[in-house]
């Protein structure tokens, strides 16, 4: 089953330049790997900038480059922080982050497993995000954070992408079987073969249904 919210191109056109990252689901404590979110986001932004050779003597192009770099590193870091925070710790679904470059825009996509108890809450926040004036929602989110000390502020991150970076956001919720999730990890064909045998032998009940959510951010350049 697939559900789409916002501006989510289910099958985006092939881009000429892309970079894909897959991260193992957290076995190390989140605390330990937290630093890697910023590291990965900065890498993505740095990598992207190579395709925009700016004229050193042209301050305008340098400024544009710095702005794009700042935007991509901010957005990629927010997407990864959310994915790492919410990725269900029991699944073995890798977290994916993808950057696709087109002539006049770019797309950042992150996907992770979302535990079933968080789905309804997240979808209702998406609804609120898509249907509320950013100004109002901004104040509302700060007030909420003020009341709830255990705040998980993913909401503000998404809101800033729309309001401050003029990004278009979309989401895809997809149900997959755990067995299929295994295959998402690209393996050699021998282990794929062994997996297939194992899954044929194992009973239906061992294949848990999981929801994978993909957040897609489009940014004009």
């Amino acid at each position, binding site marked *: 089953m697939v559900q789409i919210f916002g501006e989510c191109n289910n099958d985006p056109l092939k881009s000429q330049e892309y970079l894909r990252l897959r991260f193992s689901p957290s076995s190390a404590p989140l*605390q330990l790997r*937290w630093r890697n979110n910023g590291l990965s986001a900065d890498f993505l932004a740095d990598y992207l900038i190579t395709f925009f050779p700016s004229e050193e003597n042209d301050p305008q192009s340098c400024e544009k480059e710095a702005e794009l770099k700042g935007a991509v590193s901010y957005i990629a870091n927010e997407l990864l922080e959310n994915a790492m925070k919410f990725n269900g710790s029991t699944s073995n679904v890798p977290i994916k982050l993808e950057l696709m470059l087109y002539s006049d825009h770019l797309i950042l996509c992150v996907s992770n497993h979302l535990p079933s108890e968080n789905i309804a809450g997240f979808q209702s926040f998406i609804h609120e995000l898509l249907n509320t004036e950013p*100004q109002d929602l901004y104040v509302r989110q700060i007030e909420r954070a*003020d009341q709830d000390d255990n705040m*998980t502020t993913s909401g503000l991150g998404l809101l*800033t992408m729309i309001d*401050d970076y003029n990004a278009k956001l979309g989401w895809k919720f997809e149900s997959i079987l755990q067995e299929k999730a295994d295959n998402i990890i690209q393996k050699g064909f021998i282990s794929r073969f062994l997996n297939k045998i194992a899954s044929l032998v194992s009973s239906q009940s061992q294949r848990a249904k999981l929801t994978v959510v993909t957040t897609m951010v489009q940014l004009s350049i």
Partner: protein
Amino acid sequence: MKITTNDYSIKYDTETATISWQGFMRLNGKEYDPILQLLNQVIDLEPPIITLNLQGLEALNSSGISMLGRFVFSLAKKKKIQLIVQGDKKIIWQRKWVINFQRLMPSLLLEWK
């Protein structure tokens, strides 16, 4: 009062009632607690004006923005303390964000580098 790590530092100068921020701050939600505590201690001192110097703070994630937002919001509710925010337009998140703080506290004074 100050907090210093490899990635960032926050220092409060009592004489000028200025809080200076430096570095990269991309903490996990709860890790902001000690910083919020420092900010609350500064509020408790009740200086007439508090200055936030953000010019050295190169990166801040949304959890950090939320923390700053809460600080601004609580000052706005208190109504007794004037807030000056010093930012740098070259740092993208500040150009975008410092203006949002004014939504929470219309009397906030902005100074660009």
